[in-house]
């Protein structure tokens, strides 16, 4: 039995976190959830490989965790909010991760964001009505 297809599978560069993904990434996300506790973070930091094995990650997932390969982790069922808890250990913010998904620098990624939003103040004026600021 194959998992059912969805219209959102057609959105490029996008991994909608549905049952199929959550099912395949369950152990990975479970490990990331454990990082809400400082004691667990210390245990992970002390021996990341062992900690990944303890949580039953696949070999591919474990390697991607150790190497900080976040696009791979996403493709292997990682949820972005849980991956953010792993990114901390690689000194990465969600913006660094965003850049990594594109394979560009964080500064370049931030420039994309600025470009996407550029001219919004003029748009507010066009939009009419009262806007604060």
């Amino acid at each position, binding site marked *: 039995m194959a998992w059912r297809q*969805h*219209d*959102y599978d057609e*959105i*490029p*560069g*996008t*991994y*909608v*976190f*549905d*049952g199929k993904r*959550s099912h395949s990434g*369950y152990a990975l*996300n*479970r490990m*990331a*959830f454990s*990082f*809400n*506790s*400082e004691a667990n*973070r210390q245990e992970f930091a002390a021996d990341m490989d062992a900690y990944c094995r303890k949580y039953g990650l696949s070999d591919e997932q474990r390697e991607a965790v150790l190497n900080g390969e976040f*696009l791979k982790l*996403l493709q292997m069922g990682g*949820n*972005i*909010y*849980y*991956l*953010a*808890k792993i990114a*901390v250990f690689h000194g990465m913010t*969600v*913006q660094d*991760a*965003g850049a990594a*998904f*594109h394979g560009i620098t964080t500064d370049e*990624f931030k420039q*994309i*964001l*600025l470009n*996407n*939003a550029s*001219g*919004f103040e003029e*748009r*507010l004026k066009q*939009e009419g*009505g*009262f*806007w*604060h*600021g």
Partner: protein
Amino acid sequence: MAKIIGGLTTSHIPAIGNAMYSKLEQEPYWKRFFDGYEPVKEWLDEVQPDLAIVVYNDHGLNFFLNQVPTFALGCADSYQNDDEGWGIPASADVKGDAELSWHIAETMIRDEFDITTCQEMKVDHGFMVPMNLFWRDKPTTNWPKAIPLAVNTVQHPLTSAKRCYDLGKSLRKAIDSYPEDMKVVVIGTGGLSHQLQGERAGIIDVDFDLECMDKIINEPSWMTGLSNDYIMEKAGTEGIEVIMWMVMRGALNDKVNVLHKHYHAPISNTGAGVLLLTDAE
């Protein structure tokens, strides 16, 4: 009788929490964003609400993927913030109102919403950032009481903008039928456009954000007609959080007064909108 005196909206991303924690409000990157909250804070100072209903989503603090409720209502006398994995010190507890929560739960379940009742509930940045944005200048003891209403926007399948709007109507009914004199505000949080994940990360769609803000004010039926697929395509996978604004909108009259609106982008990866609405006739 209890009464909903206003509806607020705001983004709730952790970066905003970090900026407040690090007191960056006056930095050039942040100033225009934070300035947008000042009129709302003045209004709140004037009307002094007794309680805030905060519609937000949990991002992996209280709920893990083992058990994901579509709608979860806090039914406790206080709510705890906690470490989300970044080592940021937890905020002080926020006071709840269990009696009112159970009254809301009874109303919603009678109205055929299949909510999850939570007598213990940790509240993450999705809840704390909005509370801090609106009340951080006051000592915690002077904050209004709050009731968290968590909507699943993380684990698909998700509920819809329409269902959120209808839940807001039930929330309104609950507040209107509560016999205690209380002034209540409803806060829709999250959004606007952002996508954190994948090769499409970095979406900000100013046009869509402004259209959402306009339609939420003037034509909520436009918003309730949108599919989640459409919203994600336009506003990004995390932009879907905007459906939570519709709970707030459903709790107000068909026609509303706009006391304040504000938009800024980008804030971190996000288009950030603020609304302050009250019932018109």
